[in-house]
């Protein structure tokens, strides 16, 4: 990502320019909807209603949001060390395997409050392990993290396919899925949780994992901006040589950062496997790892931005599903196209509008300046 050339006030850099980029992405998406002969305004209405119309829909929206917070944080942490972790998809997949194996092994013997911390640890550990190899190869063998994490995504798909088809499949079943977990290994749904306080909502996949997501946001914020390790990571991301020269063990830093990234991605397993499906199955990540890249770019690698961006993508995923139901000409894949456009405009073309904004801003400042001079003189 190219660095800003001239100083603009922070509110333009963090506020106005990202907003323009996201509007550009939505504008082009609107054109696509026009091309296929539908009304974009109508589509937006359906998406918003589909995502927030009732507590069932909100539940779905927040469930997706939870996934995207995890994968968005994962990408962001790596980005701070200027490492590009495209492997969130695979790390989340393997993280889910960790959760699944633990739940399948223990759910008959121990209660929920023992399983939960172990499952969180397992998801993180498995996710981190899947990030460890590419990180090690980058740090110690000089191979490129982008390529290796892409390769590891595909290796994860094959591995999970093999494990589900040959090992975890429930005997006598056709579809490659494990048996259902017992209730001791099921994360309480939000319906149950608010039920403890006497509030009634409809059942949806939303579960208590969202608290883990919010906790992770706080943790990442504290870690990146308020610890020595976070400082080292940002310094490394800013200037590798300076970090090296100042005595930081950069190889260990690369491995450590990527492992933390893998831990965060692995938490998707908690939300999906323990919180939603309650069994191990194929393709439960469903692209959340890639969406995390869009989320991190849009949220500018900051937890607050990531929460906002995740909510936006949660809205798009849930609302988009409703949209393809209401208007059959618009496929659910439209959301993917929007996601691609967001990555394009907020990532690759992030600074496209900057020179224009800069010119406008300087013009305004100068005209204000001359106006002041005239009144003073």
């Amino acid at each position, binding site marked *: 990502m*190219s660095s800003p050339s001239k100083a603009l006030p922070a509110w333009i850099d963090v506020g106005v320019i990202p907003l323009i980029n996201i509007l550009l992405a939505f504008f082009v998406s609107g054109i696509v909807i026009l091309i296929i002969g539908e009304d974009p305004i109508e589509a937006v209405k359906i998406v918003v209603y589909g995502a927030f119309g009732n507590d069932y829909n909100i539940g779905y929206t927040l469930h997706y949001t939870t996934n995207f917070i995890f994968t968005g944080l994962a990408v962001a942490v790596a980005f701070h060390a200027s490492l590009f972790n495209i492997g969130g998809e695979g790390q989340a997949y393997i993280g889910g395997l960790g959760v699944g194996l633990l739940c399948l092994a223990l759910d008959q013997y121990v209660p929920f409050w023992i399983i939960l911390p172990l499952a969180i640890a397992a998801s993180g550990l498995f996710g981190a392990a899947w990030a460890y190899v590419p990180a090690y190869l980058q740090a110690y063998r000089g191979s490129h993290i982008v390529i290796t994490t892409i390769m590891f995504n595909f290796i994860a798909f094959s591995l999970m396919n093999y494990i589900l088809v040959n090992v975890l499949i429930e005997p006598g079943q056709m579809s490659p899925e494990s048996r259902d977990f017992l209730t001791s290994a099921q994360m309480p749904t939000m319906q149950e949780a608010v039920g403890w306080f006497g509030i009634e909502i409809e059942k949806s996949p939303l579960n208590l994992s969202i608290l883990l997501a919010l906790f992770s946001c706080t943790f990442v914020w504290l870690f990146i901006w308020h610890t020595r390790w976070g400082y080292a990571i940002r310094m490394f991301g800013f200037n590798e040589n300076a970090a090296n020269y100042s005595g930081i063990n950069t190889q260990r830093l690369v491995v450590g950062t990527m492992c933390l990234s893998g831990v965060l991605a692995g938490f998707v397993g908690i939300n999906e496997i323990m919180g939603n499906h309650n069994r191990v199955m194929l393709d439960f990540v469903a692209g959340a790892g890639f969406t995390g890249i869009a989320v991190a770019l849009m949220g500018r690698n900051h937890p607050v931005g990531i929460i906002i961006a995740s909510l936006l993508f949660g809205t798009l995923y849930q609302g988009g599903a409703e949209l393809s139901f209401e208007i059959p000409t618009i496929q659910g894949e439209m959301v*993917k196209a929007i996601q691609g456009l967001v990555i394009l405009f907020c990532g690759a073309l992030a600074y496209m509008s900057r020179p224009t904004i800069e010119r406008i801003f300087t013009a305004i400042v100068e005209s204000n300046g001359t106006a002041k001079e005239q009144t003073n003189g």
Partner: protein
Amino acid sequence: MDDLFLLLLSTLDSTLRVSAPLVLCAMAGIFSERSGIIDISLEGKLLAAAFAAAAVAAVSGSAFVGLGAAIVTSVLMALLHGFACITHRGNQVVSGLAINILASGLTVTLGGAWFHKGGQTPTLSGDARFSPISLPGSDFLAEIPFLGTIYVELISGHNLLVYIAFLAVPITWWVLYKTRFGLRLRAVGENPQAVDTAGISVTFLRYRSVIIAGILCGIAGAYLSTGQNAAFGKEMSAGQGYIALAAMIFGKWKPVPGLLACMLFGFLDAMAVRLQGVALPGIGEIPVQFMQALPYVLTVILLAGFIGKAIAPKAIGRPYVKER
């Protein structure tokens, strides 16, 4: 013995068919990356081109018009990549990823709206497809025992695009190593400052490289949907763009080793189909998933420096900023 020979021939025959799009994409990747532009968008260009070819061929009834549409589409995506990476100096990996996701979303969105088949295009037949070509002399050469069989079974009987794919390799080699353009292209991937100092436009050179990559991916896409298959299907590129990327790296960014890597990965794929459910003596049954993962595993091992050393072009991934 004869059976084994024929089995081998048919495996090699499908190796050629499977590796043809990989070869085209790998050559595309070589052009782009040797000029210093990372191209993980091979996958997206391939998918978009496959859709364009099948959609236009279905409407026009001509495979060649479809091929043209595929090339145009793929070049447009390449230009978008160039616009982001060369003109706006954006992150090349991010741009490539954006194109891949965009292609995967747009193809199904547009296909679903235009053909009402959930993202599929209508089935093609007749002139709307590239059909197998019998090379001259197949009839009487078939009489010759060994070489004749090879000629008829293996070399003859592919469609036009397969031959183009394999011709693309010597052409790529010739352009890269024997022309002035190729010399400059390689130089701009290693040291753009030097090229700029010599008075050659880095921007124009890199744009031409990504356009060539677009053309090659376009042909590969047309092959997928109008040659190898008879329609476009959702996500039909199925990671082949990434396999080609892996093959290009495996071939150390060089045309001929790249070709061999593509053939190796294609052979693994062809074997995976044939070995399914077959127990090998002493090894037992090889899981098909293992064969599918093997290209990626091999590439990782190579990148880790355990099989020789893969050295990327020096200036790859770094946008060029003209000094003021």
